[in-house]
Structures are given as C-alpha cells and as structure tokens.
C-alpha cells in the first residue's frame, strides 16, 4: 500500500513526483476538521504523515497552510508548463532574491532548495535516493543536502531539466556555488553568476551593482528579452507590499507569548525564496499577519505557557515539520526566526529602472546568508545580526542547528557562541546535523537536546532572573 502511487513513475524526476503527491492538497478545504486531518495523516506513509501533521494538526495554522500549499502547487504547475509555453526554466539558489526573475516574461525561476524541500517533505524516502545518487557520482558527502538533493534529482532521472543555472554564492558558500556550477558543467547548460565581493565598503557595493548590471545584460542577451521598466516596477511594487507585511510579521513576533505559529517560519522562508514579487506571496503573507494579529488579540497560544523564546541562530532543520516546529510549539517553545528571516529592505525609488535596480542590488547584497557569510568577516557580521534579532525580538536563547555542509559557520561557531554570551548573556545550544537528511542527526536527538537545554539552562536562567527581581 505504501509504495503504490508514491514511488517514482516512468518519465518523472523527484520534483514531478512531489508535485503529483502534493495534488492531494486540493482534497482539503481551509476549514478541514480534526478528523479529516487525522484520517489523512493515517492514510499516508510515515514521512508524509509528519508533513501533514506539521502543517495541519494545530488549528491556528491549518487554513493558512492549505491555502499556501495550494498556491505553491499552482506555482509548481506553472514551472512544469513553462518550457512548453516558450519560457526558459532557470534554477536559482535560496540566497538570491527571486523578484528580479519574475520581471522577465520569458523566465521562470525555480529555487533549487525549494525543489529539495518538496522532495524531502513529500516524497517517499525523503529524497535520500537522490543524495545517494550524488554520492555515487563521486561527489563529496560534505556537500549541502539543501541543494544537492534537488540537483541530483535532475541529474538522475528523466523529466524536467532547467535551461540554465543561476547562482550567487562564490565566496560566501562554496558547497552551494560549487554544486550549481557542477550541475551546469555536467548538463552542459549555461550558468549565470552574480558574485558578491566580500567587501562592505562603498567600493564593494558599487562593484556589486556593476556586476548586477552585467548579470541583467547577460540574461537579456540569453533570453532575447529586455528587462522592461514597467514590468520591473510592477514586480518591485508587489515585492514591497510583501515587505510591509514582513515588517508587521516581525513586529508581531515581539509579543509574549508569540502569536505567530512556529510553522510560519518555514512558510516565510518558502515565500521569500520562491514567490516574492508575486501576488500570491502577498496574499499568503497578508493571511499570516491577520491570523497572528487575531491570535494576539485573543491571547491564543498552543501551550499553557511560553516556556522559552528561541532564536535559531543559523537555519531550521526542515525534514520533519511535525517533530520540529509543532513539537516545539506544543512544548511552549516559540521559534522567533533564523538567519534567513533577517531581511534588510532599503527604501525604494520607483522612478526609473536604474533606481529600482539600485534598490534590488542593496536587497541582494544584504540578503540573508549572502550578507553574513559573504560579509567582510563571517563571524562578526553573523553575530551582529543575530544579536540584533535576539534583542529586538526578546529571545531567551539561541539554538545553532548546524549543518555539516556549512563550513563558514562551523568554522566560526565557537567565536559566535562566546561573543553572544559576552555581549548579551544569551546561551547557545550547538547541534550538528543536516537541513534535509535525517540520517545525520535524527529529530529524536534534536528534541532531547533542546528539551534538556530549555529545562536545564533557559528555564533556570529565567527563574533566576525572576527571583532576583522579586528578592
């Protein structure tokens, strides 16, 4: 029963199979009952069960996640139709603001890490076969599953293939840049690079802007389509509608208990990496904000009390939504964000193509991870930004969900942990695992470590502060 309908079909790759399974999201209405959720969870295989429950078990986020995944599915369908409709399908990494690409009528950007995420959270076997396939090619096991699973799915099977690969992480993340370059070389398709100089001076920013103009020119030449000012304005205005909502979302996170459901952290990540600049992104984000406001008004929270407010100082682990996001929420642990949730949006001047591209260059320069790992110093830029988020949102502690591929953060985590404690007195739990591969560190270990950390360190620290105040 398990295998039927879930295994790869002839002519498909992992992405297409994930899309096929995701179609079940149309079986749900936004007012789906607890019984229907339970029934669906019991019907599917265990890995998908954790996705279904992670998205739908808590009534607060149920309607939103159904709405969101329906929009995401529609976007995936668009991606699958794109080439037959004369568009060029390009893969972009999650470190690249996608809005620029939506301004080209002849391009369809698909985020590599969103493809990986879809395969891991929807497909039977969680994409492990694709990781293993990459290893069978001889690729090193220290690469990042975040992009390697999606890329390997392309290399391994028939089905959807991109027309080009775009990346922007040379110098800020070797595994990310390298696997994208490798795929382009291996498939013999064009690759487009936007390098961010590790230079935060005005000279560095100006150089980045020059690179961006050249990047746009190369895309224009390749597609035969000029980037039109009106189209760019339309997309950037929509992107900035999302920015306003993002700012509200950030403010809502400050409330105690945090009214924003934990799973929205994942939703925001997908919106930003794949959908920013589109109408559906604005609509989903607006609903997220409305739901959170309503919860704030009613004082709703999933647990009897908010035990800890955690800032994930790097990135979430995303292979088991239920045992990560939902588990923490039910335990009274609010997730306030991760490094990918910290965005810097400059004021934008819509008056000309140049002024909008200037703003876009600033957004991309300060894009999460590009900003920190591509900073003049990884460690200082990273700790500065996390300190800002921790203070602004009132976090009690940090959890570093390290990913074995991320050599930049792993190489500076000791400094980071010491510095965070020195500056703010905030402790950090350091864990090593993987974003998409449960075989590195199972979620049971994560739960055990987080539970112990919260009980032994965070709660005691808070109790100590309370005693000190009352005494």
């Amino acid at each position, binding site marked *: 029963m398990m295998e039927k309908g879930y295994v790869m079909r002839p002519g498909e790759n992992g992405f297409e199979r994930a899309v096929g399974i995701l179609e079940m999201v149309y079986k749900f209405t936004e007012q789906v009952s607890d019984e229907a959720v339970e029934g669906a969870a019991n019907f599917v295989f265990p890995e998908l069960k954790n996705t279904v429950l992670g998205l739908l078990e808590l009534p607060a986020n149920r309607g939103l996640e159904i709405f969101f995944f329906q929009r995401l599915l529609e976007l995936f369908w668009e991606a699958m139709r794109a080439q037959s409709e004369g568009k060029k399908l390009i893969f972009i990494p999650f470190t690249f603001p996608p809005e620029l690409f939506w301004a080209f009528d002849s391009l369809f950007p698909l985020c590599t890490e969103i493809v990986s995420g879809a395969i891991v959270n929807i497909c039977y076997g969680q994409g492990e076969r694709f990781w293993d396939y990459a290893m069978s090619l001889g690729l090193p096991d220290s690469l990042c599953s975040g992009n390697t699973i999606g890329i390997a799915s392309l290399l391994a099977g028939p089905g959807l293939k991109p027309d080009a690969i775009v990346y922007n992480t040379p110098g800020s993340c070797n595994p990310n840049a390298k696997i994208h370059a490798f795929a382009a070389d291996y498939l013999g398709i064009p690759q487009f690079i936007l390098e961010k100089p*590790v230079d935060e001076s005005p000279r560095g920013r100006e*150089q980045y802007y020059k690179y961006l103009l050249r990047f746009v020119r190369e895309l224009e030449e390749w597609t035969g389509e000029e980037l039109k000012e009106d189209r760019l304005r339309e997309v950037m205005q929509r992107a900035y509608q999302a920015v306003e909502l993002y700012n509200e979302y950030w403010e809502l996170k400050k409330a105690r208990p945090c009214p924003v459901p934990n799973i929205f952290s994942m939703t925001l990540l997908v919106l930003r990496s794949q959908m920013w600049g589109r109408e559906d992104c604005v609509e989903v984000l607006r609903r997220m904000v409305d739901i959170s406001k309503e919860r704030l008004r009613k004082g709703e929270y999933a647990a009897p009390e908010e035990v800890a407010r955690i800032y994930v100082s790097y990135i979430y682990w995303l292979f088991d939504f239920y045992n990560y996001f939902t588990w923490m929420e039910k335990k009274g642990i609010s997730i306030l964000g991760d490094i990918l949730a910290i965005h810097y949006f400059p004021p934008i001047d819509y008056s000309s193509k140049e002024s909008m591209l200037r703003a876009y260059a600033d957004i991309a320069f300060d894009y999460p991870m590009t900003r920190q790992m591509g900073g003049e110093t990884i460690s200082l830029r990273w700790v500065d930004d996390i300190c800002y988020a921790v203070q602004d949102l009132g976090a009690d502690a940090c959890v570093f969900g390290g990913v074995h591929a991320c050599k930049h953060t792993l190489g500076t985590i000791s400094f980071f942990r010491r510095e965070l404690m020195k500056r703010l007195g905030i402790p950090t739990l350091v864990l090593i695992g993987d974003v998409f591969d449960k075989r590195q560190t199972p979620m049971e270990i994560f739960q055990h470590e987080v539970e112990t950390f919260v009980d032994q360190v965070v709660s005691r620290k808070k109790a100590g502060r309370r005693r000190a105040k009352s005494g």
Partner: protein
Amino acid sequence: MAVSGTALEIKEIYDPYVQKWKEKGGRVVGYSCVATPVELVEAAGLLPYRIKALGNPRTDLADGEMSLFNCSFCRSCLQLALDGTYDFLDGIIETNGCDHLRAMFENWQHNKNLPFFHYLKVPHFFRDDSLEYFRGELELLREHLASHFNAPVETESLRGAIEDWNLVRKRWRELCELRELPEPRVTGSEALALELAGSHMTGKDFADLLSSFIEERREAPGRKPKARLMLCGPATDEVAWLEEMESLGAVVVADALCFGSRAFLHRPGTGENPLDELAEGYLNTIFCPRMYKEYDKRRSYILDAAKRAGVDGAIYLYNKFCDLHGTDSVLVRRDLENSGIPVLVLEKEYSAAADLGRIKTRVQAFLERIGGGAR
C-alpha cells in the same frame, strides 16, 4: 652538502632562512593563497611567508575554534598560530580562498590580533570588470603595506621583484622538464620540498636555489619509474606522505597542486604599469576550483600537463570536507579517463598517520591497475 640535501630538509615552520631574516631586523608577512602577489610584499622590503603546516598532526587548540567538519590542513595551520609557532609573523594577508580558509584567518585574528591584518579580496572569475576591481585591491594592499610598515612600494623595486619572480617561474618550468623526462631526474616529493623551501624566500634567493638544484640534477642519472603519475589537488605540504607514495615505485612526474606547479602559473600581464601587470597575471592564472566558469581552462591545463609528462595515471587528492576539490574531482576524473588516463580519487585527512596504511593500499592497487605494480 649538495644543494639538494639542504633544500630538501625543510622541517621547521620558523626556518633558519626566516630566522636569519628576522635577526637582521627584517619583517615577515604571512599569506596563504597563490592569488597573493608576493612581488608586492617583497617590493615593500618584507619577506612573504606562505603559511604551511609541514605535516603538523596536532589540532587540539584549533579544534576549540573550528569544527571537525572543517579542513584539517586549515585547522593544523591555525593550531600553529594558536600555540605560538607563528608568532614571528609581523602581519597576515587574508584571501577569500575558501570557506575553511576564511574561518581559519578570522579565528587567527580574533585570537592573536596581529597589528597588520589585510584582507585581499580576490574575485571568483576573470573578466574585465573583476580585473578592474582586483587591480584596485592591489592598490589598497600597496597603500596598506606602505602606511603600516612605513615601506612605500616604489615602481622600480616592484619591477625588480616581478623580474625575480618571473625568473622563479622560468626555473620551475625547467625543473618540471627534468621531471617529465623518460627517466625523471627529480621526484614529486623533491619538487614539493623545493617549493616549500622557496615559499618563504625572496624571489632572487628562490631562483638561485632552483638554478643550483637544476644544475646539479641535469647531469645526475635518472630513475626509471614503475609508473608515471600526475598528482592533482589542493594545498598539500606533506612531503613525507608523497615520499611514501613514491616509495611504492611510482614517480610523480607532473602535478596540479596548489603547493606545486599551480603556484607558478602566473604569466606576465599586459598592463602598462607593474600593478596592472600583476593584477592580470594573477587573476587570469588561478587554476583553482574556487574560480567559477573556468572549468574548461582547468581541464585544458591538467590534460596538457598530463600529456606532456606522458603519465600512466593520475591521483586526485583532497582533504576531507574540501567541497571545492571534491566536486571538481568528479569532472576531472571523467575528463582524464575519457582521454585514456586512469584516475584514483583519494579523500584523506591532513597528516593523519592512521590514514597512511589505507591510502598506500589504495595507491598500490591503483598502480597494479595501471600496470605499474607488475613492471
């Protein structure tokens, strides 16, 4: 003692050559990446010192800063910084070679707080716009060296240093020709030892050392190897390791190593002044997987070197967790094998004695596969 004996005995980080330099009041600036124009440092009257670990197996202090998922060569170098071995350095030039290297430099600076710490930002591709930026970076380096060390870099002295280092590169090519002979006069481990010795010398002294060594070996009898190997990979400075491999009967007759031939590929640029020349010469010849959209260039270089030396097989060697070389190795293996050159890819830990037996067995099996074991 013959030149070869002296040159091949580099055992200390704080080498007698450097000690003498310091005793005379000279100042020493460390760097790690071959994209660093040593001419500029030397023209400022400073001794450029390429950071190395010489097989140091200890990493306990460095492990407190970097994780075990970081390159053990970088951790080994950091260890030597933290334990004081590198305290003789008067400054450091960081480059954005790879994620590991950047983390190593940051931890180095957080812990030692060197008075001179310069970040030379090297673009990841060679184009007119990146070249212009890199040219600006060299200007900034020149200014920083001049202001910090009160050592202005005059055009004449820069031209002199460029000439010296161009001569080094010429000599290195001559050395390679001796390696490429049907009966090689120089082994791979000897070439590596020479490179290590020269990586903390002035260009003039290094060129002299190479000249004497080449002179000595030109008349020496050659050695008929069981197999002619090419070695590709990153910065490995483990001479003893290479000696062990060659003790199996093969000779490394060509290499594409960062401590090795890749350090000498700089070609004089076409600019009007020396800085233009350096910028183009360096940025255009970084045959390292850190460079993007340049795989075709790397492939051509490796295939040409392999063919010129008539290799029977190639070993692609890299340290565990090196994503740059690990990923490139797949393409290099494919392309070498398509050209009829068998390839062994070896992933190892830096200076891990425990790894040696395992790796020797694999190399032995590889030599048998390519016919070298049975000859």
